[in-house]
């Protein structure tokens, strides 16, 4: 579908906020799903870019993604101005499952893994759950979405260089008391962070990891974005785009 650009601006170094007019969105979406976007109509940058949903406001008919400019393709996308349209597929994949009875959830986002936490935090808050967001960035000029997340609960920030919040890893901001008070965790970010999060919560708190992998089609066909997932005693390749990107943390196998 072709969606019209409503807003498109910088919210951090190399980070862009893109709001699209989306009047006919499917009702059954979940936080943690992604949209697959063409950066241009030419064949030069052929493949779509998977961008996680930051907000999906069905009532207002608006969809928001936040993305990082990482190369010539996303640079091209960043040149779209309000009124122009982009080719969007989705929402795709399986997002974060929500559980009845959860009273407190820890949301962990690293870098460009922070945006999907905004929609998730909103959903959890609406269900009456307490939300603690623990988010990490390289540096203060890349710290994003703190105000949005603060609307739904406490926000703890860490940066690699100490220019904002805690100087160090975001996992260092999660203490035993926080874990003891929580029912579940949700995490999205770079693989080393997910690996550390999985280790931190192992046997202590159930949760979910949203994986990142180079994608092709986004609909489960090309088998580019597979990841090892443990089922019973076996490990099999699951498709991050179609079976995921969210998987049960204890089932994710990091090589």
């Amino acid at each position, binding site marked *: 579908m072709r969606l019209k650009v409503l807003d498109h601006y910088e919210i951090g170094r190399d980070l862009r906020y893109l709001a699209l007019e989306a009047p006919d969105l499917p009702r059954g979406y979940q936080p943690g799903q992604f949209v697959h976007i063409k950066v241009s109509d030419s064949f030069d940058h052929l*493949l779509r870019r998977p961008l996680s949903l930051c907000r999906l406001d069905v009532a207002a008919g608006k969809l928001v993604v936040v993305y990082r400019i990482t190369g010539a393709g996303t640079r091209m996308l960043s040149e779209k101005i309000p009124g122009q349209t982009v080719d969007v597929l989705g929402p795709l994949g399986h997002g974060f499952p929500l559980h009845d009875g959860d009273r407190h959830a820890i949301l962990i986002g690293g870098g460009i893994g922070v945006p999907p936490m905004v929609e998730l935090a909103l959903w959890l808050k609406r269900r009456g759950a307490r939300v603690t967001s623990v988010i990490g960035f390289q540096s203060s000029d890349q710290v994003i979405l703190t105000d949005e997340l603060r609307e739904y609960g406490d926000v703890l920030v860490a940066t690699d260089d100490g220019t904002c919040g805690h100087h160090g890893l975001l996992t260092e901001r999660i203490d035993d008391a926080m874990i003891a008070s929580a029912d579940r965790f949700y995490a999205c970010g770079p693989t080393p962070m997910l690996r550390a999060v999985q280790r931190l919560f192992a046997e202590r708190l159930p949760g979910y990891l949203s994986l990142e992998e180079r994608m092709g*089609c986004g609909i489960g066909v090309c088998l580019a974005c*597979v990841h090892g997932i443990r089922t019973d005693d076996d490990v099999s390749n699951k498709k991050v785009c179609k079976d995921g990107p969210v998987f049960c943390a204890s089932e994710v196998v990091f090589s």
Partner: protein
Amino acid sequence: MKEPTSSLQQVDLSVRIGSLCLKNPVMPASGCFAFGKEFADFYDLSELGAIVVKATTLEPRLGNATPRVAETAAGMLNAIGLQNPGVERVVRDELPWLRSFDIPVIVNIAGTTVEDYVEVARRLGESEDVDALELNISCPNVKCGGIQFGTDPAQAAHVTASVKAVSRVPVIVKLSPNVSDIVAMGKAVESAGADAISLINTLVGMRIDLRTRKPIIHNKIGGLSGPAIKPIAIRMVHDVSQAVHIPIIGMGGIMTGEDAAEFVMAGATAIAVGTANFVQPTACQDIISELRAWCEQAGIASVTELCGVAWK
């Protein structure tokens, strides 16, 4: 005033590949359509000329480590590594469902040895749900994934003849462009009994990540596909189609109905759509309607009229 013929009659898009009758010349390329289920969410698969499913091997294969893809200028590299559930599960779990659509089902097969190919062909032959086989002797992404059969005319002929001997359905051979003499390869498989030739598989390529200073794809090399390779594919279809008497299924970077028409003019009887399916799930459906519209505008009554018009 005389009406233009195009508005009076529907363009005839039907073609024949050996004994297979296709309602139109457009099919997905193997490996770019999985086993079809995902696309059935987007359109009725019965609209296709045929379906070509993912390469099937004797045993299940997990495929290569990731990253498996990298974008390139007007194309992409892939090194999936023939991930598939193995022939038993393909026959049991995938093919019966495809039978519910009114289209020929072509199963791509790959192996390490001639015996592998023969055994997969034999097991598929026991299924009523297979209308043709496509021999993958051109996968660049696994050590012994058939590429050795794809670069030597004598070995290509040997595996083709061996599969022909056990197959009750037509055998299509998918050739690699990574050879110095594609015509010799085409002639070799024709003389070994191939019923048709698929041209081309991907070209071997590489991309290096400037930050890590290492190849992006874990397998280091991958197969290049997409619009970037279309001129090479057109040239090969043009040359091989004039040197053999069996039909050619042309493929390599087809994104539009006009691209499809170009392949037919080069000498392809049918065409396959690969990478475009990853960009636009409705690509095959779109290309069929674009090809029909193009023929109508050009005053073509039957797409077969176009086959090989570029030869002379």
